[in-house]
């Protein structure tokens, strides 16, 4: 019998499998884990930042951005994706990282403006000439109107859409949580396709030609109109909508591991600096710096907004009430 030699041979492949050491990046690389529609923005930011860093320090850095659904990206970081900074669609997705000790719980007060260097809002994209005469939220639940918006469970952007509709209904004269719930559940009955992400919903509306109105972030709506040509779509700004604040943060535990803290902090500061703010505005995000905002004022329609904090407290509360397993959105969905 060859019994003594069997065991090492058995173990060899097991060992090989276990020896998948993760190659660790040196301190001159930065990974930004971002959400889906920031693709164009961060492509430009990454290049501009690397150029500026080189000029200041003489060091070559390589900044890469990974894009995906905000919730998925957050989970990927939880599960071990080596993100130096996260730039996600909503604060809850970064709160979830803080809950697992990747950064301090008070992360959102570390940078100015709730850690959101740029903002947007929730608006309507309609077909050219607005054939269905969609002016405001009540028009979306008319019998002849079909609404496109992604699934709030899988799309961070869509959660803001949901909260915009809810907040509008709750803030009307005589508005209440009950009335808001009734309005929102009616709204989702007018949705023929629930895409899993914001880009998917935009494609369904723009390319598939489904639906009369797309509930979208202003930056996505402006981008779609620019890409498809202004003769195809109009943007309708509702009477009241939510100010969307996609936050950014350094992932402390991981930058300390990579030795990239200084680089990561400079990267986020860059977003607040005039150059970064200009790039945000060029990609249709509303900049925070008044000077840059004034310069690009013409491309943004006037809009009246409420903030998440004013209506819902904070994202943790909003998440548990509306979007957690068995939350309001799930209850509404089951009632269909």
């Amino acid at each position: 019998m060859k019994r003594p030699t069997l065991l090492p041979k058995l173990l060899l492949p097991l060992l090989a499998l276990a020896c998948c050491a993760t190659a660790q990046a040196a301190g001159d690389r930065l990974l930004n884990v971002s959400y889906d529609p920031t693709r164009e923005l961060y492509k430009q930011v990454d290049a501009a930042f690397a150029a500026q860093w080189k000029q200041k320090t003489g060091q070559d850095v390589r900044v890469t951005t990974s894009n995906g659904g905000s919730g998925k990206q957050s989970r990927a970081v939880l599960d071990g994706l080596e993100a130096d900074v996260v730039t996600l669609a909503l604060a809850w997705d970064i709160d979830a990282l803080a809950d697992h000790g990747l950064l301090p719980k008070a992360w959102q007060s570390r940078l100015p403006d709730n850690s959101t260097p740029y903002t947007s809002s929730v608006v309507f994209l309609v077909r050219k000439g607005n054939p269905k005469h969609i002016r405001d939220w009540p028009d979306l639940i008319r019998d002849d109107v079909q609404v496109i918006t992604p699934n709030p469970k899988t799309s961070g952007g869509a959660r803001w859409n949901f909260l915009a509709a809810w907040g509008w209904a709750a803030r009307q004269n005589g508005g209440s949580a009950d009335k808001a719930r009734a309005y929102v559940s009616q709204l989702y009955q007018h949705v023929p396709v629930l895409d899993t992400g914001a880009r998917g919903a935009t494609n369904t509306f723009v390319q598939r030609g489904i639906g009369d109105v797309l509930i979208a972030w202003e930056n996505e709506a402006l981008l779609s109109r620019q890409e498809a040509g202004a003769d195809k779509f109009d943007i309708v700004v509702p009477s009241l909508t939510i100010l969307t604040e996609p936050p950014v943060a350094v992932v402390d535990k991981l930058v300390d591991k990579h030795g990239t803290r200084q680089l990561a902090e400079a990267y986020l500061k860059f977003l607040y600096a005039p150059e970064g703010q200009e790039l945000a505005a060029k990609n249709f995000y509303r900049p925070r710096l008044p000077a840059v905002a004034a310069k690009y004022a013409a491309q943004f329609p006037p809009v009246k907004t409420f903030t998440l904090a004013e209506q819902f407290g904070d994202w943790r509360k909003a998440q548990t009430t509306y979007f957690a397993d068995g939350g309001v959105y799930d209850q509404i969905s089951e009632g269909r």
Partner: protein
Amino acid sequence: MRNRALPGFGLSLGVTLAWLGGIVLLPLAALAWKSASLGPATWWAQVSTRRVLHALSLSFGGALAAAVIDMLLGLLLAWVLVRHRFPLRRLCDALVDLPFALPTAVAGIALTALYAPEGWIGRWLQPLGVQVAYTRLGVLLAMVFVGLPFVVRTLQPVLESLEREPEEAALTLGAGPWQRFRRVLLPMLAPTLLTGFALALARAVGEYGSVIYISGNLPMRTEIVPLLIVQKLDSGGDTGPAAVLGAVMLAASLLVLLAVNALQRWNRRWTEAG
């Protein structure tokens, strides 16, 4: 020393065990472990909602229907490819594998573009009152698409190696075409057909990429279980609820595949006895 095509027993077994253990068993065990740690109350709360039950029935009902369609279409396709000679046969043969290789998202987007109400095919179906994209029919279509090559590719080699004598004997004994098919060919092909069916079924149950593009993902209407799992994961926090659904899918799939196996054993006994 016997002549062996593969390295010795020890190494082969080691590779097999490492493969099975690391890639198949370990993740499945982790899933079972995670979901088992939750307790029956959580389980019941997760599984008993109308929405989950609806998604389960769509996932498994759709997959069963798709596997049946695949079995019939696949038999026809394999037959044509093996028994007939026609121009571009090799090209057709190669095309069969395409659903294997194509990223499922691409398949889903392509099917949706074709069958959406304003798509190339969809616009002709619309006046007939048939809508494929964003309905259950669309889910079925995507499942049929991804499962078809499994049936064709399992049947083909068997059909090729099938001896003609029994058929010819039946012919000389005066059997008509239908009789020859049912009495002679079908019994010989049945085990392979069932294998193809089981593979197509398993593939359709787990299919995610193509279905989510064409289904519209409406809760209580066109929502499949894999999407529900993703939703539970994406809304952040604990992975427990998603693990429960994953475990349910796993158990149900196992049951279905065991049933197909039993059917196959029964069929073999029946064929041998007959």
